[in-house]
């Protein structure tokens, strides 16, 4: 079975631009979470979605938004990019809302110049 997939692998954007990151969970998994990992730090929770509804939001500005589609894939959108948004963005899927085990994708490396 395929694991969690994320696209693109890398991308470079300019300050002020908008970016969309995509995540496909493991087949059958209904919950997707997004994390931001700045270089040299641990991942920080951004969002969790379950059955297309937002179930949790971390301490991130409104420039960050996300959604989950009927096929349980998810998009993370970031508007008005800042240099500080440069990070590895990780997606994790889980079978149900409150199951403990999360399976992570390989991440998208975003560089803002």
């Amino acid at each position: 079975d395929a694991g969690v997939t994320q696209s693109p692998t890398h991308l470079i954007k300019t300050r002020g631009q908008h970016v969309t990151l995509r995540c496909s969970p493991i087949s059958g998994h209904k919950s997707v979470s997004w994390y931001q990992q700045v270089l040299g730090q641990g991942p920080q929770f951004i969002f969790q979605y379950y059955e297309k509804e937002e179930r949790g939001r971390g301490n991130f500005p409104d420039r960050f938004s996300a959604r989950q589609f009927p096929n349980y894939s998810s998009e993370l959108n970031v508007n008005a990019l800042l240099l500080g948004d440069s990070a590895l963005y990780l997606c994790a899927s889980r079978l149900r809302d409150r199951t403990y085990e999360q399976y992570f994708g390989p991440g998208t490396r975003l560089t803002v110049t």
Partner: protein
Amino acid sequence: AQTVTQSQPEMSVQEAETVTLSCTYDTSESNYYLFWYKQPPSRQMILVIRQEAYKQQNATENRFSVNFQKAAKSFSLKISDSQLGDTAMYFCAFMKLGDTSGSRLTFGEGTQLTVNP
């Protein structure tokens, strides 16, 4: 809010030896999980071991075991018979249970472990 602290930014060990990574956490919750994740240079975050807070017995997974001290809020990872493939960043993480906040993971800053031949 929960916090997770890993006080060892870097550690090294010789192949086949044993190493212990430290983690402390702060929470007022009683129902939670603790995890150790491994992140090799490939960036893929891999679950190493988990511990349910209500279990007194320490979790073990092959060469990996934990020392869970609930009262002290300490959760260390012991790696026995270290292998070159264990070289990675190791993150300690906390998950609160039983509410609708999204069951988010709170991670520590990580410990870079290098296994030397």
